[in-house]
C-alpha cells in the first residue's frame, strides 16, 4: 500500500459482520467495500435495518457479544486494523485515528459528569495529557464546534439538544483523529439546529482537514456534507460515486427510487414510494437483493450482480453491465 501516492485514508474490503440470534444468523453487513480519501466525506445512505449502524460498529470494533462472523480488511492509513488485537486496537485506533459520534449522541453523555470533564477524558487516556492540558484542548474544541466556553462547567441536563450534540462532536474531535464516523448526527434535532450542526461539520472539515463517514437516512441533509455517496441496501453497498455525479443522476434502480421518494421544497415533482419491504437479513434472497421490488428486473437478476465500474462510479446492478 503506497499511502502517499494515493492520499487514501481508508480502504474497506469485503467487510462482513454477522450476528447470531436465536432465530438464525443476521447478515447485517455482508461484504462491504469502499474507499475514502483524506479530508473527504462519504455519506452512507440507507433505510432502517439495512445495516448502516452495524457498519459503524464494525468499523470502530464496538461489537456486541453475539457476533457470528467478523472479517474483511479495514486499511486505515495503510495498516490493516482488523489484524490488531483488542488492546492494540484500543490504544492505536479507536479514538486515536478514528472516532465515533454515536446515534442519539446527545443522550449518550454521562449525566453526572460535567461536560468539560467528559470531553477531556479521551485526551487524558489516549494522548497522555494532564487534566489541565486536556482542559485547554477542550476549550479549543468548544471553539471549533461553537459551544460557549463556560459550558465546560455545566452538566448535560443544562444543555439543549443541539448543544449536547456539539459536545459529543467535540468529544470525538478532541484527540484530532483523521476520521470521524457520524451515526445519524442530526436525526433527533430541530430543523434550525440541524442546519447549525451541518454548518459546524463543514467548518471542521475545512479547518481541521478531518474526513467523515456520515451514516444517515436523511438524503436531503446528507447532501450538505457529502463528497461521495454510498447507497446501502440489505447489508450491501449497491452504489458508490461522487456526490456531484450521484445526486443529479443515480444509477442503481434503488438509488433512483430512493431519490425520487424525497419530498422537495423547491420542485413540484410528485414523490413516489417503493413498493414492498427490504428483505430479511436472516435469509437474504439469492441474486440481487433488490430484485423483488425492482421495476426493471429481468432474468439475469436471479444471479448476484458483480460491481460494475462506470468512470469513477461503481454500481452493483446488471442493468449497467
Amino acid at each position: 500500500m503506497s499511502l502517499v501516492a494515493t492520499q487514501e485514508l481508508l480502504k474497506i474490503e469485503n467487510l462482513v459482520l454477522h450476528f447470531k440470534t436465536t432465530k438464525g444468523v443476521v447478515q447485517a453487513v455482508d461484504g462491504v467495500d469502499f474507499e475514502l480519501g483524506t479530508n473527504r466525506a462519504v455519506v452512507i445512505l440507507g433505510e432502517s435495518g439495512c445495516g448502516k449502524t452495524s457498519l459503524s460498529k464494525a468499523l470502530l470494533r464496538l461489537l456486541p457479544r453475539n457476533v457470528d462472523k467478523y472479517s474483511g480488511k479495514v486499511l486505515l492509513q495503510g495498516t490493516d486494523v482488523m489484524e490488531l488485537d483488542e488492546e492494540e486496537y484500543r490504544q492505536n485506533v479507536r479514538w486515536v485515528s478514528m472516532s465515533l459520534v454515536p446515534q442519539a449522541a446527545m443522550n449518550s453523555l454521562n449525566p453526572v459528569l460535567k461536560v468539560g470533564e467528559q470531553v477531556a477524558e479521551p485526551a487524558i487516556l489516549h494522548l497522555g495529557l494532564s487534566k489541565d492540558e486536556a482542559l485547554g484542548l477542550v476549550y479549543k474544541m468548544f471553539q471549533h464546534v461553537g459551544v460557549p466556553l463556560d459550558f465546560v462547567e455545566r452538566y448535560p441536563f443544562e444543555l439543549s439538544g443541539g448543544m449536547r450534540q456539539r459536545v459529543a462532536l467535540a468529544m470525538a474531535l478532541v484527540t484530532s483523529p483523521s476520521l470521524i464516523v457520524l451515526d445519524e448526527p442530526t436525526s433527533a434535532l430541530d430543523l434550525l439546529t440541524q442546519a447549525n450542526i451541518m454548518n459546524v461539520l463543514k467548518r471542521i472539515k475545512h479547518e481541521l482537514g478531518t474526513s467523515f463517514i456520515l451514516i444517515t437516512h436523511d438524503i436531503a441533509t446528507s447532501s450538505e456534507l457529502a463528497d461521495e455517496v454510498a447507497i446501502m441496501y440489505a447489508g450491501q453497498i449497491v452504489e458508490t460515486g461522487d456526490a456531484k455525479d450521484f445526486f443529479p443522476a443515480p444509477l442503481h434502480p434503488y438509488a433512483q427510487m430512493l431519490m425520487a421518494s424525497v419530498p422537495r421544497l423547491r420542485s413540484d415533482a410528485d414523490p413516489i414510494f417503493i413498493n414492498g419491504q427490504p428483505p430479511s437479513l436472516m435469509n437474504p434472497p439469492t441474486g440481487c437483493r433488490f430484485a423483488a421490488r425492482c421495476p426493471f428486473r429481468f432474468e439475469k437478476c436471479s444471479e448476484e450482480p458483480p460491481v460494475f465500474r462506470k468512470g469513477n462510479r461503481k454500481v452493483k446492478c446488471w442493468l449497467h453491465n
Partner: protein
Amino acid sequence: MIHTTELKEAMRMSTKIQAQREVLLSIRDLHVWYELRRFGFSHIGYVKAVDGVSFEMAQGETVAVVGESGCGKSSLMKTILGINIPTRGELIFEGKNLSKLAGSDLRDYRFDIGYVQQDPYGALPPFMSVQQILEEPLLVSGVKDKEKRMERIHKTMTEVKLHPVEDFLHKFPHMLSGGQQQRVVIARAMILEPKMIVADEPVSMLDASVRVEILKLLRSLQEQHRLSVIYITHDLSTVKYFSERIFVMYAGNLVEKAETRRLLTNPLHPYTLALLAATSDPDAGNADDFKEVPPGEPPSLVNPPKGCRFHPRCAKAIAGLCDEKEPVDFEPEPGHFVACWLYQKESP
C-alpha cells in the same frame, strides 16, 4: 387593540370561508399555560405553551402547523383533542364550546376527532392484536353487535390498505413493519368515522420510501371522507403535498398563516424565511456553502422576551418597536396573515 384586530380578522375570515364551506373548528385567543410550583406548593410562574392562538378551520380543510420542538404545537394539539384544558380563550367545534362540555358530551366530542400519533410502535399496545386494537374504540363507543364491529374493522382496514385483512387481524404490533404499524394507527383513528383528524408528525419516524406512501394514504382518506386534518410537523418539504394552509408557530404564537402556495412562494415572517432557508433539497451543490441560521435558540416559554418573541434572533428587528410591543396580525395580502411589525405599513 389586539382584541379588536383579532376579532375583525376572525370575522373577515369566517365570512370568507363560510361563503365556501362550513366552519368546523374555531379557536379564539387560546391560551394554554401550565403552572409551575416550587416543591409542589408556592406558585413561581407559568409555562406559556400556547399564548394567544386564533384560527378557523372549515369542514374538509387540511391545515399544517409547522414549528420546532418546544414551540407549543403539542400543547395546541392536546387542547384540540380535549386532553388539555385551555387557561383562557375558546375552542368551538360545530358551534359547541369545548370548555362547556362535560361527561358524555365531551366523550362524543372525542369520538369526532381521530388522533394519529408520531411513533406508531409506542402508540400501539404491544399485548393486543390488530383486531383488539381496532375493536376497542368500537366497544367504548357502544357498538354492541359483534358482526357490525367486524364489518367496520374490515372496511377500515381495507381503506388503509392493510389487505388481505385476515392476514393482519391476529398479528401483534411487533410483527408489523413501521409502515404497517402506522396504518394500524391511522385505522384506529378512522374507525369511529371522525370529522377531524389530528396527525402529530405521522411520518417522521418512518423511512423515506414509506413516508410518501403514508402521506398519500392520509391524503386519499381525507378526500374520500371530506375530513378536516390538522397536520403537525417540522418538515416543510412534506407540507405542500398535504395541506391547503400553513400556520407557522414560534414560542407559543402563530406568527404566519397563509395558503400553502402563497407561504412557500412569498414567505414574509423572518422566522418562516429562516425555516425555509434551513430546509435542504438533495443537491450536491449544498456542500459548497454554509446555511444561514438565525443565532440563538427559541426562548423559554416561562419568561418569553418582551415584544416580538423572535426579536432577539431577528436580523431585521426594529429597535424600540419589536422589543417593546407585541406585534398584531397584519394582512399584507388577502388571506395572508403575519405577526411582524415589518408589514405594518403594507397592511390595508
